[in-house]
């Protein structure tokens, strides 16, 4: 047992601002390692890349081989670069959910909380790890999607215009997916079960849409633009749809959902027995 030092090290770190920053950085490093070392993460990433990049390339190829009409009206200003979004948003939500519920289902969360008894850094570290990974994957895949679509369509004589609203929409889709993953993680903390969190996510994103059908029109006009899916969609639309919020206002509302989810997760996780 020579590996054990004779005198146990006792850490007497004073909790200064720097120490807290260091603590968050270390917990993030641990969560990043866990996310990377989990196989389901890479399944989700693969599906997200295929879903996003595949959609644009598929649309471009459709025009190139003549299956789709080579007109801007037919393919839209984004050239179908975001056609895979509806599928990918579920994939990244699952990634966010599993990053949390995977640890609950296996009991590994208890080991983590023993190492980090204040727990808040774990909630934030996991969110940061998930957000970072999804952001990188989304931006890269969307870039491939758009560039692929653009090149293939150009070969068929259709030249897409790249103006600031297009750049904002493409980048906005990356931000949107990042937010979706954070919402997934938040629901994972609150509900602790994969099925429960996924159900809640689908309800939040799609179930609430039903409101626009059942509410009186005057109420719906006020409420519906603020629903997470509608508010989040504004930043990905080159031309705003009538009745919706402006792109950045809409994204701010959407981001607020993610922040509120994470904040309530932090409160609940700190109070609950693990």
């Amino acid at each position, binding site marked *: *047992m020579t*590996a*054990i*030092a*004779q005198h*146990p*090290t*006792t*850490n*007497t*770190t004073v*909790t200064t601002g720097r*120490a807290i920053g*260091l603590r968050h950085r*270390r*917990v993030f*490093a*641990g*969560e990043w*390692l*866990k996310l990377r*070392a*989990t*196989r*389901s993460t890479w399944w989700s990433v693969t599906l997200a890349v295929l879903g996003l990049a595949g959609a644009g390339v598929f649309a471009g190829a459709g025009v190139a081989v003549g299956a789709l009409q080579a007109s801007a009206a037919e393919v839209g200003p984004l050239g179908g670069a975001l056609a895979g979004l509806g599928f990918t948003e579920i994939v990244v939500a699952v990634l966010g959910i599993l990053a949390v519920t*995977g*640890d609950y289902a*296996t*009991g*590994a969360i*208890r*080991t*983590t*909380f*023993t*190492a*980090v*008894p*204040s727990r808040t850094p774990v909630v934030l570290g996991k969110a940061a790890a998930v957000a970072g990974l999804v952001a990188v994957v989304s931006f890269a895949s969307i870039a491939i999607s758009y560039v692929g679509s653009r090149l293939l369509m150009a070969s068929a004589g259709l030249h897409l215009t790249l103006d600031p609203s297009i750049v904002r929409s493409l980048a906005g889709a990356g931000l949107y997916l990042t937010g979706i993953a954070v919402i997934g993680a938040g629901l994972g903390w609150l509900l602790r079960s994969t099925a429960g969190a996924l159900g809640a996510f689908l309800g939040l994103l799609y179930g609430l849409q039903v409101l626009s059908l059942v509410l009186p029109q005057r109420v719906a006009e006020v409420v519906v633009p603020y629903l997470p899916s509608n508010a989040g969609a504004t930043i990905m639309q080159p031309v705003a749809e009538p009745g919706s919020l402006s792109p950045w206002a809409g994204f701010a509302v959407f981001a607020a959902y993610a922040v509120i989810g994470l904040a309530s997760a932090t409160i609940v996780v700190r109070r609950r*027995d*693990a």
Partner: protein
Amino acid sequence: MIEVRGITKRYGKQTAVDDLSFTVRPGVVTGFLGPNGAGKSTTMRMIVGLTRPDAGDVLVDGKRYADLAAPLHEVGALLDARAVHPRRSAYSHLAALAATHGIGRRRVDEVLDMVGLREVARRRPGGFSLGMSQRLGIAAALLGDPAVVILDEPVNGLDPEGIRWVRQLLKSLAAQGRTVFLSSHLMSEMALTADQLVVVGRGRLIADVAMSEMTASQKPTVRVRTPESDRLVTLLPPGSATYESTNRQILTVTGLDTERIAELTARHQIPVYELSRVQTSLEDAYLALTEHDVEYATTLRSAA
């Protein structure tokens, strides 16, 4: 040093831990005993802050667990060997834990060597035997070189070599001045490992004694081998002697010491081939102590 101060934990109407207080001292191995459902695991979880007590608190080296700046350097805990992600390699499991405290990869390799899992470190724990999982859990507990070590049933599923290794490890940790607190249902193993015992039943403290006191507190038991066992039985207080099931020449006598029995047999001229004090086992002492506090008694035992 672990100071448990009046902790209570209720789950609905069930009181898992009821105003429990005891102190676990450094330098010795302290065993934590009690029937199933006595509140041992709940108590251990409250020590490391996973479960919040309804009343009372726990201090580890004078501080609340949640206030420890670097808990892994102060307390190493193995509460459930299966509580690891089955598809995240053993190495990743330890490395992620180490990262939260800025502990280097060299220490991860070191603890993997200590527990003998170096060769399988890249494999996923989902395929580990219970014994291998226990070794991984012990590695995690030792990662931060802690002054306090808490282990819940660490030898479950270990092979004899592994059990002996854990025993020697725990003794050496205690000898280095660390606080070692472990629970186990293997009484023979506990008897060999622990110096001090904390016994609980139905969430309450039953005993907090040194191992030597625990086994000495029982009534003396003496084994007598004599060809005239039937005559000896009639001379002993009723109910104090029982025959060995396979050999009627052997009697087990409780409540009388060897001297008294020797005098008795000499006076009545009963030839004695063998007369010896039977060392009370920890198991007997433990069962006698917790008899009335068993949560899930079997009919067989209550009939016996």
